[in-house]
């Protein structure tokens, strides 16, 4: 994998920020977009723009072919059995809300349990909180081990025969941890629960295989994997989706409309009310082509290498604390840390003045921040276009932040 070539595909990286060449270390928030994806959007809007599933005309057919072609690319990307199982959504949040409001509302009874973990992103907490409140269900949290990993024993202890839904993130956006979803799904199924997976941080970095995981629902966003914002995917097993009622009603999703009663289209379209996110889906298809060309295995290996290098270098900075597992093979390409005495916002501002973009804050994971006993942290996240030189710049930036704040004190 030649990083110089890969970098050249991302036009946004070729600029100066505050007088320094940009080092973008915030891909876990959103990834940058390669020229291949930008061109696919441009081509669609310049030549094929039309609504889907209704036009008799040529442009309508082209748009429909591209949109449905993108669905097939997604199916293959996550190894789903059928495109009936691939629903386009606005992102991970919408996908998880669809499961909670659809499957959850239709099946949960009072006293049933929903099991999540302390490391979840708000998008995999609040839909379940709302559902639990509505249904009188119990929302349970699996505790984490000291290093921020999940133990299967803790998972086993939390899941009971009252548990109906287990919803866990594949990769943590704060700790970088890769969770043993396949094993957890087995425990869930043994207890009669379904397994929902928040794969927002996994899909860009590791090979996701829904059949191998044997998960029931899986959600991810396009924008973290080189596609545009506003497109995401909900995968669901066909048998479950078949029984699930739509939660959005209107055009596109109907079969027959009467004055008092209507019927729905077949899967997956019954879940795609309104004009769909056509350009976004086409952009996601182009992003999948791009990722396949580079190879997810290559991307994962590159990120493990960068995470290992970053942790080695960051640890040399006195007073720097790293959160999450120390073993780079147990994590994806991100490192969350705090520099003692210097608040993460102040760290991020100093880095920004040096052209380095990192995230500072609670990373949409307030329960995890509480568990870690911090109010905020700084996070550097890597993708295929980052290299060791970027990490050297980060380390130099952090040293200068430390120096700057020790001077003023």
């Amino acid at each position, binding site marked *: 994998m030649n990083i110089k070539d890969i970098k050249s595909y991302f036009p946004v990286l070729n600029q100066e920020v*505050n*007088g320094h060449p940009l080092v973008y270390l915030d891909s876990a928030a959103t990834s940058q977009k390669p020229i291949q994806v930008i061109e696919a959007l441009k081509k669609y809007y310049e030549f094929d723009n039309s609504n889907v599933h209704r036009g008799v005309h040529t442009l309508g057919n082209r748009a429909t072919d591209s949109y449905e072609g993108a669905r097939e690319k997604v199916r293959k990307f996550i190894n789903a059995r059928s495109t009936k199982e691939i629903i386009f959504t606005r992102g991970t949040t919408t996908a998880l809300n669809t499961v909670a409001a659809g499957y959850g509302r239709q099946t949960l009874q009072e006293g049933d349990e929903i099991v999540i973990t302390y490391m979840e992103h708000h998008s995999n907490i609040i839909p379940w909180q709302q559902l639990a409140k509505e249904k009188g269900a119990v929302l349970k949290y699996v505790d984490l081990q000291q290093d921020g990993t999940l133990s299967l024993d803790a998972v086993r202890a939390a899941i009971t025969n009252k548990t109906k839904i287990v919803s866990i993130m594949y990769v943590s956006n704060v700790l970088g941890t890769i969770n043993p979803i396949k094993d957890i799904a087995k425990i869930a199924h043994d207890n009669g629960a379904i397994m929902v997976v928040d794969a927002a941080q996994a899909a860009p970095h590791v090979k996701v295989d829904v059949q191998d995981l044997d998960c029931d629902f899986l959600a991810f966003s396009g924008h973290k994997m080189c596609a545009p914002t506003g497109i995401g995917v909900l995968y669901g097993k066909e048998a479950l989706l078949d029984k699930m009622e739509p939660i959005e009603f209107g055009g596109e999703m109907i079969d027959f409309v009467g004055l008092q009663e209507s019927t729905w289209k077949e899967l997956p379209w019954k879940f795609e009310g309104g004009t769909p996110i056509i350009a976004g889906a086409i952009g996601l298809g182009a992003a999948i082509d791009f990722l396949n060309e580079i190879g997810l295995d290559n991307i994962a290996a590159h990120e493990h290498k960068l995470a290992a290098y970053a942790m080695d270098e960051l640890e040399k900075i006195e007073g720097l604390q790293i959160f999450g597992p120390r073993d780079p093979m147990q994590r994806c390409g991100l490192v969350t840390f705090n520099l003692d005495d210097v*608040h*993460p*916002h*102040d760290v991020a*501002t*100093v880095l*920004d*003045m*040096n052209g380095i973009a990192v995230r*500072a*804050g*609670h990373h949409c994971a*307030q329960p995890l*921040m509480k568990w870690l006993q911090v*109010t*905020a942290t700084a996070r550097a996240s890597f993708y295929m276009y980052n290299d060791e030189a970027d990490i050297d710049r980060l380390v*130099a*930036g952090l040293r*200068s932040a430390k120096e*700057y*704040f020790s001077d*003023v*004190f």
Partner: protein
Amino acid sequence: MSFNNLDQLYRSVIMEHYKNPRNKGILEENNVTIDMNNPTCGDRIHLTLKLTDGIVEDAKFDGEGCSISMSSASMMTQIVKGKKLEEALELADIFSKMMLGEEYDLDKYDLGDVEALQGVSQFPARIKCATLAWKAMEKGVKSEAQ
């Protein structure tokens, strides 16, 4: 690496307030309590005010946050103490204008240390840090003034 830009933000008086915050803690004899946070970053302020006869008699803040939010809270409590409620609200308005880079009456109040926060307006991502304590104060004073 040049620190010139950073010096506009982190003026020494700001860092001095961060290191030695004034009026930090909880005012036991309070009649107004305000909790506010900045949901995007986790900054949190707990402001206690003692408002008597239309005057901010005492003010204390507690909380967690970056150098800008905590020093701004320290300066805010310092300047509003002893002010009439309408003056406190006017100061909140002046501060908001200062952050937005809008014009405000320079002569009406001696802003003292608060003027050091002027540089924050050049750092859009940090404006919310600086305004948190002022918004809390504004909310507290308004609740009493009504």
